[in-house]
């Protein structure tokens, strides 16, 4: 294992938040300081990982140094690295925000260990190369997320997150049965070996199709794909703001990432056009339905939660387009567009929820109709809502503008023009719900004060929103480069 030093960041991305969680649990008195320290260290490890992948291409590590069948693999290719980088930067922003958000000592001490465990689970999920290890990560995410969501302890939050926990458990058991079937047929859990096995065994179509259905259906439940989204709005809207941001921006996205991985890497011989149509149709309904409910929502956080249902829908629209595009630059562009939309939504939705949380603590409520004067009282926060809202709509120069543009272009090029209607409708509804919030926020009260009143809370929200609009839109080139490093690994 002479290359151990070389793969350090891969392990550190998971070990550091885990270690941080242990220290925060054991030394609750220093939880904020230790928690921030662990957050910074983990984010640094993620940046180091991205830099290493940038220079050397896909990283692969067999833990324990055993044969490939026996050991658990960690791997980081372009897609995984892009999402790890997004997740860790967003998580750092959420951590800074959270360090000032909770005041009750019991909540401070409950939040940090669970948050760092969730973070370890996220990085573990993005970097795992083993089907059963992915199951453990899914459970870690599900349990930590439900526990964090119920942190406020009020009745609605507990009820919503209990439902979230149960639904998530059902989803992961279904996933596990799919894993068991694959292990029965192929005798391995390694993603790469299984992909090769499935590609070589068209005669096992029934097994492959059954395993795919069980796994993808279970994960769609956890990713809140319409009509399995029913648990998401109450769970995300009732959690504390930093937790809502993490759940909506990161956890759901991580589950979608796993679906994409299974779809493209593992089951690509059977995920053709016919298989891709159903999730895409459900995604289309999710876009319209989620956006419509967001428009009708009475509370700001509920609006953001329904908007997540819609945004997840967009990601599923890419599946039939990817199926219809032959491998080559056009397909890479499409994949990069998908990634760009996922990453942009991660930043934008986190920024939106953090800003919504500020509005809520400042105004004592988050009813949209009574937000008058927020723009004057919290100019920076309102600006953050406007910025992340424009990324949710897909206005230029946000990253999702480019993503949606390529999505529509590809829909026309492959003759699936109907998706263009769905995307346009969704974008129109999104602009309606974003402008509804902004028009209420600019109320009376002409008392202009400082732009930023509470730096520790407002700067993270504003930064995340800015990244989603400016950085990702104007400098989206690196996403393509990162993908180019791993394009060979997809579907090959």
């Amino acid at each position, binding site marked *: 294992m002479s290359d151990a030093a070389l793969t350090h960041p891969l392990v550190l991305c998971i070990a550091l938040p885990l270690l941080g969680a242990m220290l925060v649990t054991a030394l609750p008195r220093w939880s904020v300081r230790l928690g921030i320290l662990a957050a910074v260290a983990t984010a640094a490890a993620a940046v180091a990982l991205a830099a290493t992948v940038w220079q050397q291409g896909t990283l692969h590590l067999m833990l324990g140094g055993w044969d490939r069948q026996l050991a658990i693999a960690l791997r980081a290719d372009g897609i995984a690295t892009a999402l790890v980088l997004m997740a860790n930067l967003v998580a750092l922003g959420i951590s800074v925000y959270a360090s000032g958000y909770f005041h009750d000592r019991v909540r401070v001490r409950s939040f940090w260990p669970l948050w760092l*465990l969730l973070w370890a689970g996220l990085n573990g999920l993005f970097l795992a190369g083993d089907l059963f290890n992915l199951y453990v990560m899914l459970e870690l995410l599900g349990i930590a997320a439900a526990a964090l969501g119920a942190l406020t302890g009020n009745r609605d939050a507990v009820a919503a997150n209990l439902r979230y926990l149960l639904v998530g458990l059902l989803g992961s058991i279904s996933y596990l049965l799919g894993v068991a079937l694959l292990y029965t047929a192929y005798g391995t859990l390694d993603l790469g070996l299984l992909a090769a096995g499935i590609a070589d065994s068209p005669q096992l179509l029934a097994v492959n199709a059954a395993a795919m259905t069980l796994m993808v259906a279970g994960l769609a439940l956890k990713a809140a794909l319409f009509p399995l989204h029913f648990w998401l709005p109450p769970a995300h809207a009732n959690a504390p703001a930093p937790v809502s941001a993490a759940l909506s921006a990161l956890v759901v996205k991580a589950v979608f990432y796993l679906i994409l991985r299974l779809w493209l890497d593992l089951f690509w011989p059977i995920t053709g056009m016919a298989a891709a149509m159903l999730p895409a149709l459900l995604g289309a309904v999710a876009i319209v339905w989620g956006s419509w409910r967001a428009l009708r929502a009475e509370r700001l956080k509920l609006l953001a939660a329904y908007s997540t249902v819609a945004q997840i829908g967009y990601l599923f629209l890419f599946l039939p387009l990817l199926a219809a595009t032959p491998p080559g630059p056009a397909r890479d562009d499409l994949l990069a567009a998908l990634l760009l939309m996922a990453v942009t939504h991660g930043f934008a939705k986190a920024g939106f929820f953090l800003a919504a949380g500020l509005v809520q603590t400042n105004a004592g409520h988050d009813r949209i109709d009574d937000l008058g004067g927020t723009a004057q009282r919290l100019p920076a926060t309102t600006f953050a809502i406007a910025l992340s809202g424009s990324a949710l709509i897909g206005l230029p120069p946000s990253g999702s503008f480019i993503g949606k543009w390529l999505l529509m272009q590809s829909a026309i090029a492959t003759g699936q023009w109907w998706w263009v209607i769905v995307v346009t409708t969704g974008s129109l509804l999104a602009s309606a719900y974003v402008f509804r919030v902004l028009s209420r926020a600019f109320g009376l009260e002409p008392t202009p004060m400082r732009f930023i009143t509470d730096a520790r809370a407002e700067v993270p929200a504003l930064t995340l929103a800015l990244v989603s609009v400016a950085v990702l839109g104007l400098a989206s080139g690196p996403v393509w480069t990162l993908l180019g490093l791993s394009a060979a690994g997809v579907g090959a």
Partner: protein
Amino acid sequence: MSAPAGLDRATERSRDLRLLLAVLLTLLGVALTLVYLIALNAGAAPRLADLAYERLPSTGVQNPVTAVLLNYRAYDTLMELAVLLAALLGIWALGPAPPGFQRSGAVLAAMVSWVVPLLIVTGGYMLWVGGYAPGGAFQAGALLGAAGVIVRLAGDPRAGLPGEAAQRWLLVAGVLVFTLVGLGLMAFGAGFLTYPPTLAKWLILLIEAAATVAIGAALAAAYVGGRPPGPDARPTAEDEDALTPAQTPANPPAPPLDPRP
């Protein structure tokens, strides 16, 4: 829970729905069974068994299941300990433990005084024997947890666990030792959780001992069902000074019913 009148149609509809679901799921079961039959005949027969036995001599243990849990797939076990801890921290976040049951009679107390030490000794034996026979950290931890449940049933509100500060260290022991061993091996150039064959036996035993303590503490604490009562407990959930040092405890420690030798 009480059903108001006028729900007849609804109950009838729900009965139809149940029946429909039963039929659909029966079909699903039949389909799954067929698929399972095909998968069994796919020819992957030895699967990982032969390879796992072939590599067994260099794992440092003779029990193949322990070899998988703590060597081949040690990373899974590490994350699984994290899952257990996450569930317990989630329980703690929900509030302080409910008051224990009233102290029970002499018969139960007498039973506790010999069952609990027996469970703990058996747990230690399980831990040691796990290297070459059925047993290991999980079974040993479960026995410790069971001892905690019995102590709790006998009336100790803390299920025999120490105060909150010490309990927190017990709970994190498993993941902490596991991660530190893994990172230490990586620092010495062996790779994360890659044990040198000469040290493997002792490193695995060290990790298993810590994991046993953590699993036992976590299971017993989960049964207690909330943040621990006792000197370190914070009685109110609404105190605001998040960063001030802890006050000195006012109430005396809980009655001693500590079964550990």
